[in-house]
């Protein structure tokens, strides 16, 4: 597709169900002109989609789903990054002619 670029949307949900509520999000938008400002930390108060399913209704394709957890004995209460992370993509028209 000429003049289309990839957008990557990462949604973090409250639970592994793809219909669970979005609690964190990030957009990396390849349709923007090179050097243009991407989504910044802290720049939105409300998620763009209520859930992964909601994003699918708007044309996003799910690229990656998280593995469900296993709990090694002795590490049941370890926490780290947010666990229910879904990576989505969409292709859209580029904002300008960054083509080679």
């Amino acid at each position, binding site marked *: 597709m000429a003049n289309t670029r990839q957008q990557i949307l990462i949604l*973090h*949900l409250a639970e592994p169900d793809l219909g669970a509520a979005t609690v*964190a999000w990030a957009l990396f938008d390849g349709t923007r002109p090179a050097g243009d400002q991407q989504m910044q930390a802290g*720049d939105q108060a409300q998620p763009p989609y209520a859930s992964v399913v909601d994003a699918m209704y708007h044309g996003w394709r799910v690229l990656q789903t998280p593995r469900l957890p296993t709990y090694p004995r002795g590490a049941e209460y370890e926490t780290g990054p947010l666990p229910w992370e879904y990576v989505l993509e969409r292709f859209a028209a580029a904002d300008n002619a960054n083509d080679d």
Partner: protein
Amino acid sequence: MTTDTLAAPRLSAGDMARFVVDGFLEFGDLVPADLNAQVHADALAYPTDRPYDPNKPREFWDASPAVREVFDLPAVRGVVESLVGPEAVHDHSYLHTVPPGKREAQRWHVDSSLAADHPRQFDVLVCYFPHDAPPAMGPTMVLPGSHLRRVSYHDVTRYKNFVGQRQLHGPGGRIAFLHESLWHCAQPNRTDRWRFMFKIRYLPRVPQQGLFDTDGWDAAGIDAFYNDARRRHPWVGDGFAAMGPERRKWWRYLAGAPA
């Protein structure tokens, strides 16, 4: 830090429980207005192009008698001592700035690697805004409750926004005390004024047990607060199942109660 002058009031059990759940405490009334104004004047007179030099870890501190006075106030010392104990080490400090018109936010990060005894053993980061810092000026954004996650420095830079993220904005003199593992980032400055934030890192010299006013630590109200804590941070989702027991264990430790 001196501890042998005026008695420093201690945090209450309720204050300390909020620190355990949120990972920070903020106050707007600890520093007199004239002292805030003097620190602001010192910041404006200070070179803005002076990056942090690890061989000069207290440059603004050494340059500003007013900022040293702020951190010698009994009310300020009381909070610091409640968290990290007497004679805590002033590891380093720095005058952080965001220039007028800066459009980029700092990325989410923590100021620590993986502490061996996380979250029990913690340093405290004290963030002091001497001037009015409305949201448009870019005061620090924090993620309440994130200090309990075990992550290192820039592991969290891929995140951009969270339900419940919160900016430390407010009138001049705002001062926030952060657990070292709290996720945070400076924000863009859409004003025509410089944004200053003076930050000190304090390291404890003593086990962090029984340092606050533990009276009522096991009262029904505190217990109810912990029971309701999962609703304070929606971004945690069902992670409360892991974080809840950790919080309780840590609370008993802080209060000096048997495990």
